């Protein structure tokens, strides 16, 4: 009894369920021998359970009735033997699949992790990490369970039903047809129910999600709630949402109760009718008592397999949803790397005089892949040249595209148009790891991983690259530049203290200093810093700046700056305004010439028509 045969009403939909589930095959393939053996064992074990009552009946009807005590002993021993074999087969089935299926789950999880890591940042901006995590945990567990139970029992119960039907048909086809008649309506009822139920459970899931959001916000915003003493609407929303969830869940239970009742009542009523007709037929001599007994016995034996089909189909549906959710991520393509030949060509083309060209943006345009077509680009034809060894500050108002521009250099986002070159080599033609080896970054949000301080800082240094200036001296130098030596060595285990989500929690300023150390370790050729000192107190900031100045001397650097003190680190300043470079010059020049820059750096009022003022500057 295959899934496609049971749902005449929506063949397309069901076929797609089967097709979804077939995609699991590559993962099941390595364990196929054990998997199919287990299914075989399950069928045999099932038959054993059928044999069991038959032996009991034989003992009762045969030896006991005939007072043949040797026969009773024989029957008893047989019963014992079959019982032991049945139990062992049950065990064998589970033993066969236990480790392999845990392996399937793990392999899928590893693939998902590997793939997620390589998907572009734009993908991760769209997808909450919770969405990926729920795929890696809940969905994969569900798929393992599906392979272990419903799939096997779909086969087992389906064949049981089939065999039962055949036996009954051969005994008496009229009674058999009557008995089988509720199967089709039942399948139909199950399908209808399953649709309604999935609507209800979808609603419950959404309501649960809303409720979780309220809980989350009430916890994250606890300082505000406590500060004002209350948040009435939050508490109200919580009450209302949990009540609504309650109602939906109760409705789900009613649906479930209803379908279970139908599944129970319908076959029972038909069985009652068969019983009446059967008795009449026996009375009229059309069939024997034995046939009637056999009939009812088989009908009762088939009740559970029939009842279970509905549930098994529902589970198949859930599993196919889980499969789709898994492949939704796996099907997202990782943008291809340039072919090796192209890389060589581009490297060869770099002329010697370009070898120390620095960082160059030429006509760079960027828009987010999911942005509305009519919306403006985030960056529009940006031309900017950071000379080799030069430090360029990037200044601009909120939303001017500074962070996006910096993200294009290590190719965290791919420029939509134009080229970015590092010493004359187009980054788009270089393999991403190569670009990222050349460019070191400190982000505005300093993220530390669950590892020691040392591991966190040295993570950018190539272990495979023996020429890389790693090691303790370099590590200490980086700490010194970031003014982190003092607090790092004061940690319980010094540089070997675990930090990150599972380790010591550090203050924002401390994390920012470690992120800075991570960026400068290993003397990268190109350095991109996104407002690296924003969370530091004034004393520390001054000291970090002094140390950073030394590093910046030999490095080509692009530094996003919000304050004059950070701008002071730079040789020149670029003003980014509305996605374009509005002006480039020294701090003093821009202060003199650009009203917008004056506004950003000193808080001076903008002239009444800021758009025109902006146009003025590049015109100079």
């Amino acid at each position, binding site marked *: 009894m295959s899934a496609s045969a049971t749902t005449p009403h929506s063949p397309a939909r069901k076929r797609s369920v089967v097709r979804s589930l077939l995609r699991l095959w590559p993962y099941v393939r390595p364990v196929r021998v054990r998997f199919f053996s287990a299914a075989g064992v399950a069928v045999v074990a099932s038959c054993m359970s059928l044999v069991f009552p038959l032996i009991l009946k034989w003992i009762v009807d045969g030896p006991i009735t005939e007072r043949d005590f040797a026969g009773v002993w024989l029957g008893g021993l047989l019963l014992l033997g079959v019982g032991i074999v049945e139990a062992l087969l049950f065990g064998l089935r589970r033993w066969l699949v236990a480790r392999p299926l845990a392996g399937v789950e793990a392999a899928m999880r*590893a693939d998902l992790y590997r793939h997620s890591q390589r998907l572009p940042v734009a993908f991760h901006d769209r997808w909450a990490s919770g969405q990926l*995590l729920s795929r890696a945990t809940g969905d994969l567990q569900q798929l393992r369970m599906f392979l272990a139970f419903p799939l096997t029992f779909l086969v087992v119960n389906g064949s049981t039903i089939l065999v039962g039907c055949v036996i009954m048909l051969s005994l008496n086809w009229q009674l058999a047809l009557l008995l089988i008649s509720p199967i089709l309506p039942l399948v139909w009822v199950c399908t209808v129910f399953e649709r309604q139920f999935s609507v209800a459970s979808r609603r419950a899931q959404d309501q649960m999600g809303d409720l979780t959001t309220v809980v989350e916000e009430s916890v*994250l915003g606890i300082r505000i709630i406590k500060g004002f*003493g209350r948040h009435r609407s939050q508490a109200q929303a919580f009450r209302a949402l949990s009540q609504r969830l309650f109602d939906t869940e109760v409705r789900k239970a009613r649906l479930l109760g209803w379908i279970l009742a139908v599944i129970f009542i319908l076959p029972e009523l038909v069985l009652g009718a068969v019983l009446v007709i059967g008795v009449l037929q026996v009375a009229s001599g059309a069939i024997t008592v034995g046939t009637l007994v056999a009939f009812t016995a088989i009908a009762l034996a088939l009740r559970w397999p029939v009842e279970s089909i509905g549930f098994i189909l529902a589970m198949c549906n859930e599993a196919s949803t889980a499969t789709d959710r898994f492949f939704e991520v796996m099907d997202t393509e990782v943008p291809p790397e340039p072919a090796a030949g192209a890389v060589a060509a581009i490297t060869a083309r770099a002329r010697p005089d370009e070898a120390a060209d620095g960082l160059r943006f030429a006509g760079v345009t960027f828009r987010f892949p999911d942005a509305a077509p009519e919306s403006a680009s985030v960056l529009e034809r940006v031309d900017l040249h950071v000379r080799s060894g030069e430090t360029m500050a990037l200044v601009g108002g909120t939303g001017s595209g500074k962070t996006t521009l910096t993200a294009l250099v290590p190719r965290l986002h791919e420029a939509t148009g134009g080229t970015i070159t590092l010493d004359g080599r187009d980054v788009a033609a270089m393999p991403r790891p190569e670009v990222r080896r050349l460019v070191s970054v400190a982000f505005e949000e300093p993220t530390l991983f669950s590892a020691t301080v040392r591991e966190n800082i040295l993570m950018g240094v190539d272990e495979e690259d023996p020429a890389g200036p790693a090691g303790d001296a370099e590590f200490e130098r980086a700490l010194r530049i970031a003014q982190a030596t003092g607090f790092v060595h004061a940690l319980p285990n010094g540089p070997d203290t675990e930090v990150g989500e*599972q380790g010591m929690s550090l203050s924002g300023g401390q994390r920012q200093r470690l992120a800075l150390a991570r960026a400068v370790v290993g003397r990268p050729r190109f350095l991109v810093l996104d407002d690296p000192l924003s969370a530091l107190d004034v004393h520390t900031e*001054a000291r970090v700046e002094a140390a950073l100045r030394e590093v910046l001397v030999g490095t080509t650097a692009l530094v996003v700056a919000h304050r004059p003190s950070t701008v002071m680190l730079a040789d020149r300043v670029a003003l980014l305004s509305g996605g374009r470079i509005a002006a480039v010059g020294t701090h003093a020049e821009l202060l003199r010439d650009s009203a917008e820059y004056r506004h950003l750096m000193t808080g001076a009022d903008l002239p009444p028509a800021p758009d025109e003022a902006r146009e003025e500057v590049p015109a100079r």
Partner: protein
Amino acid sequence: MTTAVTDRDARHPEPEPEPEEGAAPPSPGSADDPFAQDRLPAPPGAPRRLLLSLLRPQRRPVLLAAFLLLLQQAAVQSGPLLIAIAIDRGVPAAMAEDYGPLIGVAVAYGVAALGSGLLLYSFFRVLARGSQGVLLDLRARIYRHSQALSLDFHDRYTSGRLISRSTSDVYSLRELLDEGIQTLLTVLVSVVYITALLFYLDVGLGLAAVASFVPLFVLVRSYRRRAGLMFAKRSTAIATVIVKFNETLNGIRPVKAFRRERANDATFAELNGQHQWVNGGTILEMARFVVLARLTANIVIGLIVLWGAYRVADGSLALGALAAGSLYVRRLYDPIDRFAMILNAYQSAAASLEKIAGLLAQRPELSEPERPVELPARPAERPGREVVFDDVRFEYRTGGEVLPRFDLTLAAGQTTAVVGATGAGKSTLAKLLARFYDPTEGRVLLDGTDLRDLTNAELRRGVVMVTQEAFLFSGSVAENIALGRPDATREEIEAAAKAIGAHDFIAALPDGYDTDVRKRGGRISAGQRQLVSFARVLLANPSMVILDEATSSLDIPGERAVQNAMQTVLADRTAVVIAHRLSTVEVADRVLVMDAGRIVEDGRPADLIAGAGRFSELHQAWRDSLV
């Protein structure tokens, strides 16, 4: 009766419910702090007491459900009996053209079928009301309790854990209630029925069946113990996998920028492999239990039949009794597999209940006054209220003095800036004033009234504390401002926003004041968020405001807007500002410089700058940073 009794055999394809793993969050912190292990101390037996206290209000639906199931099972069990009657009596009667017995059986069979179906339906409805009622109650308790707990607790417990307490832990209890209660009741009812029937048939058979529960009981106990250990290992293993997974995705930018992909693959493979091994072990443990249980049951059946046959031979047991008895014994052991499922659900729910009980066992540190006092009416011409720290000392319960004994009076209407290094005690001072903590000794007085004598509502009308790390709740901008005073009209909200200087940017949002801050286009910058939070304060209009300045800086235009707004907020009330900016200090009437819990300098900003103390030094550094 004998012939048609057929087993509903043991091919139950229900999967074992997984013990809750998924969302168990990683646990931060370290060392032997109970917070680090994500196991808050709960008194022994607390999980069970919690479960009982949750079930008690629902005892009616649960008892009613049990009763419905009792009837339903009676109807179900009558089926085979009716079939036997139909064959034994109906056939001979029908042959004699007496259709009375047949009609009787037919009617009874129909009634039993309909009855048990409807009873099943009612059972589900009633049970769902009960179990969902438990969950509703539990969620509300966790919510209320976590809202009541101190900020200090929130700082240490982390939001992720609180969220997983009210989501995944509640969920695992739900599995137990949904599947567990139903299965448990069904199993209990059928076991009771069948055991009673066996005793009715023959006392010896009954006793034998009861005796066979002993090895099963031993098996269940050993499984519970062993599976408990395995589940604990597995949940630790999956937690490390989750942490690694989450951390990688949340830090995808640095992961890519520092080329961690391959190293991460290797680490993940190791963690994933560990989980795979433990996971497989858990499944095998389950298999071991099911097999042993089934083996025991099958052997018991075999032995009972043999023993019965022996007794039939010596005439002490009726033949029919053995026949019926052996069939019923087989049915008795059918629910074993399902019993294993309940055990699993119970294991997982017990672990969750323990965590929840640990959370609920935390007592809020502050209590409402027994005899609340109201703040004295404030004379209209006097802005703000006077604050007195009277002989105050503060230390954490775990020991460690933060603020040594001190006295301090803040004049009504004055703005006081508090400066000092991290850990100097600035925020403790502010938290005492906002009554997030109570002093260990001494009193904090607001216009002469001890803060401890005010109800929470009264206190918050008088004192509001805001941090500038402004969090916005989902909902419209207007709703976020109205948080300061929920009954405010739209005009009042807009007036507050205008006074703060937030009106222009709010009006420029796609839906103005009704823009949802979580939707596209509703993105509000850090500086603008601070303005919204000031508008809240202005709307709340407390006589005393405590402000914790954000440490991270804005760009300069944003900074100026915030500074202007702050002056509006501070005007006409008593204010304490934990200051990180020179500009803030300069507008204050008074500056307190703190070091190691003591106030080391105190005076007007101009006087302190002119002096040669710490503040003067700090001020110079600030000046330099502005260039």
